[in-house]
């Protein structure tokens, strides 16, 4: 059985105001408080295009490697629904703002590029709240705060073959939109939504009947719905039950899909060019300057970290999940030239502390200079690795320099040989039995003696040096 999957993803562009009016895009406010004649579709009102939305859309399209078109066109998509106040959605149809592009994914089956068909900009509809949600005796209420929010819809080629691949695609796309700051990518707040097209065929050369799945509210739901649908269609094929071309609804509780409406009876959307908006013409010079300002995309940064800095794929992925983390890492590595050690330290100690604090790197006081300084102190034996774990919270919470923090905590490592010799002599005098045992060839007691020395130095002695000094003094 061959499974073929294509995705349609709606990403909400992180603008301050809506796509065609000046209303706020704030999420979670009282219903119907961010509305005006334009987004309510009142008679006589007209749309005007939000330049910021176009800018964000172009940024994302360029990062995806799409061809951005200098001229694109808005169209009306006509259908009746209570949450669509104009009875049409302003979208792009024949001439979208961008076509082509790819998103790379890595799964157990290896690395592949998922091709994109197109990306177009459009407005969101309002939100219908049905009786099931609100116990209002069969009523449906509509919140138009969401109506007119700017979206970019990304349509993939049918290039994916499993739920895992779709999951990885979405994770990578979300990493990109957040990296670029074009969207929060937050699926729970509806800032990223995904519909799945899936078909299963016994013959790899032929495409099966396409089924669309909707109501997918998390990446995990996307994967679960695909896994379920894959099995359902395979079972139908085995049983010779015909698969209907239809839209199916994912039930999150049951983990199953159920038929919503058949595609044959679907709407004729009667698309035609939106007469209220002129053609969207982009200035080639502006496009060029945008292109020049484009940041490196996360998957490029990730492979550069692996290739040039020798990081493991795991560490490189972790450090490129957020752009601020990657930038922090790069600034730190410029001051502390041990990328592997830095990556591992950030991946363990720093990450653990951030998780404890429930903060992102940017929300703490930790600076690249401080972290590089701390790691250099460990490297130069100024403090022990263990002691650094006590220092780090101070750097994160207060922003003091590592030298100050070490001083405040009294953690300077003693690497002065004469001082350590003093401790060593005391230890040898207090533990004659163990000294004798060592001298008669029982080398293992050295560890005990080093431990005694560390205790005497209150942990500040450089343990490596302590061992060396003891060994020299114990020689008969």
């Amino acid at each position, binding site marked *: 059985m061959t499974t073929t999957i294509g995705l349609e993803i709606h990403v909400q562009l992180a603008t301050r105001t809506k796509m065609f009016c000046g209303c706020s895009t704030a999420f979670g406010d009282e219903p119907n408080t961010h509305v005006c*004649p334009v987004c309510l579709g009142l*008679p*006589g009102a007209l749309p005007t295009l939000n330049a910021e939305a176009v800018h964000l859309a172009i940024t994302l399209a360029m990062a995806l490697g799409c061809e951005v078109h200098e001229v694109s066109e808005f169209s009306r998509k006509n259908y*009746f629904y*209570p949450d669509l106040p*104009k009875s049409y959605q302003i979208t792009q149809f024949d001439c979208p703002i961008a076509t082509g592009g790819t998103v790379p994914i890595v799964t157990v089956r290896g690395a592949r590029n998922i091709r994109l068909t197109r990306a177009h900009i459009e407005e969101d509809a309002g939100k219908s709240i049905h009786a099931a949600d609100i116990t209002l005796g069969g009523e449906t209420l509509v919140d138009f705060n969401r109506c007119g929010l700017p979206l970019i819809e990304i349509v993939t080629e049918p290039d994916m073959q499993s739920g895992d691949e779709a999951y990885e695609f979405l994770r990578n796309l979300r990493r990109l939109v957040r990296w670029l700051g074009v969207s929060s990518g937050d699926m729970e707040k509806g800032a990223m939504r995904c519909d799945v097209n899936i078909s299963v065929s016994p013959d790899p050369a032929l495409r099966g009947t396409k089924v669309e799945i909707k109501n997918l509210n998390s990446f995990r739901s996307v994967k679960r719905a695909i896994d379920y649908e894959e099995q359902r269609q395979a079972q139908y094929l085995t049983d010779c039950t015909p698969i209907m071309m239809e839209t199916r609804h994912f039930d999150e509780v049951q983990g199953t899909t159920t038929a919503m409406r058949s595609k044959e009876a679907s709407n*004729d959307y009667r698309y*035609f060019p939106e007469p209220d*908006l*002129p053609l969207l013409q982009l200035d080639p010079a502006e496009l060029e300057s945008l292109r020049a300002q484009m940041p490196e995309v996360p998957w490029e940064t990730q492979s550069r970290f692996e290739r040039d800095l020798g990081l493991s794929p795991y560490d490189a992925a972790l450090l490129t999940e957020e752009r601020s983390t990657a930038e922090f890492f790069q600034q730190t590595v410029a001051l502390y030239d041990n990328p592997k050690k830095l990556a591992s330290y950030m991946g363990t100690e720093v990450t653990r502390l951030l998780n404890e604090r429930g903060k992102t790197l940017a929300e703490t006081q930790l600076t690249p200079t401080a972290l590089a300084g701390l790691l250099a102190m460990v490297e130069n034996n100024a403090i022990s690795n263990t002691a650094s774990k006590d220092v780090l919270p101070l750097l994160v919470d207060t922003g003091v320099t590592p030298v100050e923090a070490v001083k405040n905590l009294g953690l300077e490592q003693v690497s002065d040989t004469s001082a350590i010799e003093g401790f060593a002599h005391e230890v040898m005098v207090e533990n004659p039995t163990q000294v004798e045992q060592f001298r008669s060839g029982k080398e293992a007691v050295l560890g005990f003696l080093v431990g005694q020395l560390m205790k005497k130095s209150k942990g500040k002695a450089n343990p490596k040096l302590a061992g060396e000094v003891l060994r020299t003094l114990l020689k008969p």
Partner: protein
Amino acid sequence: MSSELPHTLEQYRRAVRAHELSAEEYLDETWQRIEHGDHQVRAFLHLRLDAARPDAQAAVPLSPLAGAPIAIKDNIMMAGERCTCGSRILEHYVAPYSATVVQALLGAGAVVPGKTNLDEFAMGSSTENSAFFPTHNPADLTRVPGGSSGGSAAAVAAGFALGAIGSDTGGSVRQPAAFCGVVGFKPTYGLVSRYGLVAFGSSLDCIGPITRTIRDAAIMMNIMAAHDPKDATSVKRPHVDFEAALQPTLAGKRVGIIRELKGLDVQPEIAAAMEAAREAAVRSGASIVDVSLPHILSALPVYYIIAPAECSANLGRFDGVRYGLHVDGRDMIETYSKTRNAGFGTEVKRRILIGAFVLSAGYYDAYYKKASSVRQLITDEVDTALQSADVLLTPTTPTTAFRLGAVTDPLEMYKADVFTIPADLAGVPAVSFPAGKDATGLPIGLQLMGPRWSDAELLSSANVLFTALGGES
């Protein structure tokens, strides 16, 4: 108050500025005329004397309109006033905001006596498609005033207002102006903001003034023509003083006569008026040139595909969910269906159905797309013709005002738009001005079209012909 009341905006403004007349006195006078005459003409859907009086009292004599009564077609929003579009579906709808043009007029000192009748959603050529009542032509009460801005044209002709605004999608300002013997101007598409005009055919809709004289139209255009950031199809242009641009001569101008329209069946008195206008043009220093627009006769069918297509989408919002008429059904679809069936009249339904059909899968290419291509062709031809001529002269209508109820076949009614539609399709400015009367004393209107953005020059040329044919300067 002087016994000779001003009957043009220009005279009125002069009288008020000379303190021979106050806005309030003139409003009273206007109100008496309305009370005396509107029960027969029925130009207004709603009157607002109580609200208009304080506006008149507060009018600043030195403001551009100095408190002149200006009527507003009832498909243009004026905050706090009903805006019915002549339809049952919006019978009780109160505008929550004002159209940009209305704001500009009020800001310039207009006093609004009321909102005027129209064919439902501006679809019609006689104002008989109003869901409430037909308007009668003040020149002959048994005749239609034309449409769809029939109420606005009748109000100006009857002296119920010194000026009015209407909307022109296929001739809806010019044709009623011609029928009622007043001036109607459709500006270049994009010159006047559409924000607050209830959309019919968005790519065609223009708001334009209806006045007694061309000079009055120029006075109103000075207020109405402005770039509006709320309308993405509104265009930023250098400022033009329409009134100052009025010249007394046509010297050096080329007046084009469209070859393909010569064979059309036109009422003999209108043909004679065309001849008189030609001669007047020559006397005023113009030359006459013959121009060809090979596809101009396709304008009518092209229009009756594109305008319904756009209206089918524009009128979808009237679904009874958020405002307007609501008729309950068993479910959502039946509620939509019952609401729209009860709320819309026959002509509106016909156009919505035509529009949905020409946009539907399988017919889009053959109808909407084809019509769009032919529209471009006609536009190009108009542009080309307007390179070899400065203005194009045509009749505004094939006949003078017909009797109420006389035209029942929709196709016959559509034909009344044959001369006006090309300017809408091409987006060029066109003005209808009175040019005499027919044998029964009904007004005749002639039309001048000009190149895009030549609005001020076009009004100037029209003013020369208008005054040469007996109109008031």
